[in-house]
């Protein structure tokens, strides 16, 4: 108890006035979507649920066992892999992305890495091209990550189809 008092005292004695430039940044801004006057801002289900709903109303965007006890050795590796996969998908399917490719789910099952999510085809629907790109992406990522990679991307006609709400 006395020890705390001592701390307070030292804190007061060293305090001095200063211009604060960081006060607004103290707020939690994550997952706070800004509404529009005419309700045109599209929200997917993923966006509409708050971070504290993860594991309750919505799930994770990456699935692996590296965040469990005794599995932590390669957690940074998984983060790096995720980023590689996400960037590749975003760069490789630029015309087909839904909400800028922010909601790609990466799942790991055994040695297999599965990329799931939605793509849209309203801008151009050439199924042969899609098959070629899927084949290329799967093989490219497999060779890069040295493990089998599968794409389980489903198609919607346009981005509006994944809308959960407009704010």
């Amino acid at each position, binding site marked *: 108890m006395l020890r705390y008092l001592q701390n307070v005292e030292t804190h007061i004695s060293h305090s001095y006035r200063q211009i604060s430039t960081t006060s607004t940044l103290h707020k939690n801004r994550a997952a706070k979507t800004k509404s529009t006057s005419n309700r045109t801002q599209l929200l997917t289900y993923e966006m509409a649920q708050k971070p504290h709903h993860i594991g309750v109303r919505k799930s994770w965007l990456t699935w692996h066992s590296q965040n469990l006890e005794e599995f932590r050795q390669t957690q940074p590796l998984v983060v790096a892999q995720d980023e590689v996969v996400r960037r590749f998908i975003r760069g490789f399917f630029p015309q087909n992305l839904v909400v800028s490719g922010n909601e790609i789910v990466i799942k790991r099952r055994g040695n297999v890495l599965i990329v799931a999510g939605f793509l849209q085809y309203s801008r151009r629907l050439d199924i*042969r091209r899609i*098959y070629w790109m*899927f*084949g290329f992406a799967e*093989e*490219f990522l497999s*060779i*890069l990550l*040295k*493990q089998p990679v599968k794409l389980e991307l489903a198609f919607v006609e346009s981005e509006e189809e994944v809308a959960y709400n407009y704010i």
Partner: protein
Amino acid sequence: MIGRIGLSRVLTRGLSSGEAAKLTIQPAIERSPTDLLNALSETVGPDTTAPHFAYIDDPITIPSTQSAKKTYFMAKEFGKRAARELATEWPTLFAFDRDQPRLPAFRPQHLADPFQVDPTEKSLLKMIKSREVQDSCVLYERLRSENVEVSEKVQLELFRLVAYYNSSNIPFSEWQEWAGIRNFGEESNGKWKTGGVADLLFETLQKTDETVSIMIAALCKFHDSQSVERAKELYKEHQTGKIHLEAFNGLIGASSFNAAKKLAAEMNSLKISPNISTFNALLFSAAKISKYEEKIKAFSEIIAEIRELDMEPALSCYYIIVKNLIDSKLLDKEKRGENEEQSYNKQLTLAVSWISEILNEIEGDIVFFKKRLKIRIFHIKIDFLQQNVISEPIFRSKFFKMYDFSHRFCQNQGISDENYKNLAPVTSQCHLFFVEAMGVLYRASNEKLAEQLRNIYESSQNSIKMPVFTVESTFYNRYLQLAIEQTPSLNRIQELYFSMVPRLVGVNNSLTSLVFRKISASSERNWPLLRRAIVDGITAGQLNGVLGEEMRKQLSNVQLHTLGTSEREQYTTLVQKLVAVWIEFSQFTEERMRRLQRKLSPSQISECALLLTRIGEQQKAYELLELLLDENASSGEEATVYPKGHARPWAMAELFEDALRKKDTYGAALCLEILSLTANRAKLEPLVNRMVEKCNVNQEQARILQGFVRLRPQ
């Protein structure tokens, strides 16, 4: 408090009811550790109607026709090959090397360049082992030019390789890594390359039994008249030695039947036992006999010979027989004369009876093997009883459960039906029997045998499988068309169609028109089947041409009052979709899209208008009909309607009646104007009278109508 009252009540009730039924605990049912898992696994199974796993599991990307299946599969494979090529070319960009142990499968490498590798025997041997035929030839030439000594052993290895593949790279059918190319790649069996590395090596190497045999077999494998002659000469020259079985097989297959019989006799004298390939070669030579009766006799003799030697004919033997039971020149229906028709029917009957015999034989074998399995299980049971039951009383008391126990024991020992797959591939042609036999049964319209053949193919005893997207699809297509042709019941057709299309059988024009024909001929009504056939037709691009016309006809024949509420909604949606697609196709008038354009014909417009009226979209229907009277719509660069042809009178009559019923003067007048393009005054006058009578037409309008009709030709 409440709890206390509840407890006291329970206690009182318990004390007062002395005669309550006794609670008896049932003895636990004995279960093995895997019983629960087995029960669970029985609740799920493969979905035979689901798309093949090679495709992207999404409705827009699942192919429904045979050509789409091929295109998509190959597109994906070429994508993979492109990625692999990149990784081979720039391996440093893929150096995310965290795998332990290192996985060579994810580190593609260029094939060794024969001009760059060390000119040593070791590199040559490495190339031979990886079956790079042409590269091996190049390296061998290089070694010779650089005077590097190549041992006889390596030369023999190289000779084996180049002779087997005729100094060419391995055929697509032997590609291991790329399934698409393996199945869809087409290659002709080329002729022997004279003066190639194989010939050079043959001259260099000693003429042993093996080298001569390899050469003869190779010359017969890639045969033309010259190479067969050369093979025969080699055989004659080497009479002192003993050539191998493969060489005999090659010679037999390339000779006439009489010569083949002599060769077989010589084999016998040399005490060389034949194998199935020998008999295949004999059958192949027998198939060359021009006289039909003699050919059939030869087939019977060969099969009897196989049995005589205590061997089982492989399905490839039956394939060669079935393929040659009907003369190829008789197969084309249009080219057959009257006499030929008779001999065709005779041959077809004979072919069916052969197939019937063969199928009974195969099925008999399956039953026989099942019996053998039962006998084996029985023996194991007896052994087990002797070892355990007698000594341990616990087993004696539970003797009645012995069957289950021993069955489980057999399973643990790995003894099951699976061990007794008697239909196993012997040669690479065995699977072709199924498709060839189904072809004959389809010609003969023999559904019963076709069903039997299908059951054998799908049986768990059969391990001979056809490649999925090529041969198997043909097999099921023939079966499905035959079964649909033979049954009058639309429900049965629905069941068959739903279970096979598009997973096993791709949507195709002949199948769709057959389904439509059966629907038209039947007195039953089956909306789900019709809807499915039309929806499949849309995805398979059958909307234009004859099938599109058939779809409109079928939809017009649907009696809406027989459909339920949800079915009527489906009908509405389908008509809207079809009309929208046809209109969209007609509007591709831009230069770059014109090759896709399909203009609307007047008959098509009238039918579409009728369908739209049925679903209550009169406004849209009249808008379509107006196109028939609009000259700009059928002329010029922007034309969307064919200038030729006429609206369907029956459709127009129904549309006119509908307009009268609704007292729609505009609609009725529009129909009358379109009808006047083809009908004469006599036919139009009663229509005008009815219009005046039914619709709210004032005097002025009536006068105009009558004047209009009077101006028409008589």
